[in-house]
């Protein structure tokens, strides 16, 4: 074992120690092998402790309270906004709190979309998209008379960009994922955004699987909108964020209406608050927003370059080990190249349905997701009824891959492969 691998093992061990759930055993006494971080990540102690500290020490509504704990809560809430913004290279006045990626995308479709999309306009998506970056645009297209186009995906799960300029003709908006949650494919955003801007389109990036795994700099990317979910990147459930270029946000009509997003209200007329609060109606998810900042601190401290490298190495190892089962019927989907994917691998094993496979793996403590992964159209196009998906994060290591392989061996026995 080389020195750097040893160092890395000790770093991973200290990360694992921060996640209390990973020390637990399942009801069958198995070690918890959590390979479903693409669905939601586990949370480290500093994030959990932040929630407890908030509720035990300074829980109060923000922005309007003049007393001490309200002031502390407001400061922590806005400081956290700055941290999350900074994590993706944005300014805090360009970062809107949402519940999750889905709400962030809906915000753009309801506000920017309603103001800018007209009958006959085209919206360009890719065939990789998660339902959350597809259905909002279907509904917008239905309401406005716009139409959808799709960047095609090839049989390896890579986008085919040959026709990109033709596809971009007449397009007002490109809404595209950073990373496919089903195949792990990393989308070449640089190229797509540059071409889209050249064609005069605005670009929204679905960063649900990007921000947790890759170093993101929205300014360098030149994304117009970037949507993400805290719960997939060590933060609590119920908090997400939308980055938007300030001039776009300023020009957009409000989304939800109510307290906090207003400046002056009369019975028959209202003027709205400044960005970002214009888009935040009602009492926010204060505790979890504060937790999101701590999660970003944690990741920044690990260093996102390290995170990416760690996951690349782990994927590489997983591809190797899974290949051992190919002779017995294991099929691996997606690019199969750790440099092209970000920590999620889809597969099927002979004629074992993915749900049955996941159930059997569960008896060994191995948690994987099975099904359509909220990408039904992609599944249909690829001709897969369902796949099993193993996804990795900072707290996974080679032992977890080994546990997966052992559990797959057990499934082979049960299904008499």
């Amino acid at each position, binding site marked *: 074992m080389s020195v750097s691998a040893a160092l890395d093992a000790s770093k991973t061990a200290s990360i694992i120690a921060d996640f209390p759930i990973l020390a637990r055993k399942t009801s069958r006494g198995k070690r918890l092998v959590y390979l479903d971080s693409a669905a939601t990540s586990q949370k480290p102690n500093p994030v959990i402790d932040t929630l407890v500290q908030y509720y035990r020490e300074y829980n109060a509504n923000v922005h309007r309270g003049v007393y001490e704990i309200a002031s502390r809560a407001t400061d922590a809430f806005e400081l956290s906004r700055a941290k999350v913004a900074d994590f993706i290279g944005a300014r805090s006045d360009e970062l809107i709190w949402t519940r999750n990626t889905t709400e962030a995308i809906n915000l753009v479709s309801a506000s920017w979309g309603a103001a800018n999309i007209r009958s006959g306009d085209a919206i360009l998506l890719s065939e990789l998209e998660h339902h959350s970056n597809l259905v909002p645009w279907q509904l917008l297209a239905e309401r406005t008379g716009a139409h959808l186009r799709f960047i095609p995906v090839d049989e390896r799960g890579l986008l085919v960009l040959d026709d990109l300029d033709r596809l971009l003709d007449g397009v007002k908006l490109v809404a595209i994922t950073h990373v496919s949650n089903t195949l792990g494919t990393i989308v070449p955003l640089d190229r797509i955004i540059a071409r889209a801007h050249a064609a005069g389109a605005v670009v929204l990036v679905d960063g649900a699987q990007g921000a947790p795994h890759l170093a993101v700099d929205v300014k360098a990317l030149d994304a117009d909108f970037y949507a993400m979910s805290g719960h997939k990147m060590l933060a609590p459930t119920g908090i997400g964020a939308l980055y938007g270029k300030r001039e776009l946000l300023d020009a957009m009509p409000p989304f939800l209406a109510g307290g906090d997003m207003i400046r002056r209200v009369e019975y028959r007329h209202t003027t709205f608050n400044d960005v970002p609060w214009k888009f935040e109606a009602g009492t926010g998810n204060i505790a979890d927003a504060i937790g999101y900042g701590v999660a970003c601190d944690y990741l920044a401290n690990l260093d996102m370059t390290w995170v990416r490298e760690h996951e690349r190495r782990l994927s590489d190892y997983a591809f190797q080990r899974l290949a051992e089962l190919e002779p017995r019927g294991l099929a691996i989907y997606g690019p199969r190249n750790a440099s092209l994917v970000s920590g999620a691998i889809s597969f099927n094993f002979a004629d074992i349905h993915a*749900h049955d496979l996941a159930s059997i793996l*569960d008896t060994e403590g191995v948690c994987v997701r099975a099904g*359509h992964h909220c990408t039904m159209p992609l599944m249909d196009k690829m001709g897969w009824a369902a796949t099993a998906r193993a996804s990795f994060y900072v707290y996974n290591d080679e032992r977890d891959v080994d546990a997966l392989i052992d559990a797959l061996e057990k499934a082979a026995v049960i299904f008499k492969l």
Partner: protein
Amino acid sequence: MDDFYRDYILDHYRNPRNFGHLEHPDAVAEDTNPLCGDHIKIELRVDDQGKIADIRFSGKGCAISQASTSMLTETAKGMTLEAAARLTKDAVLENVGIGISPTRMKCAMLGLRVLKSAAIGTIAAWPDEE
């Protein structure tokens, strides 16, 4: 769940009974399990006495949904539509003969839901939620 996959379950999964289509079915229903996307369609031929004279199912799904539907078609053949409409969760559980974990209950009940929908001519409730 690992004890679930017994020989006869795997047999029904790999060799489903009454699989396919009927030429001119008297009743048809289909449904998707929203949790996993599994889809099942059931077609019935009904005789003069209102009995299920023939039955076919089609679709894709896990061993649980496929095997339980396969067994269910054997149970249903010869039943009246009324009797089929009254079938409960227990009928399926007896067929499969082994505990189903709560997360997989919908898989086991999908076929029954579709059968009952075909029998009553409208969408039936989920048998595990009645």
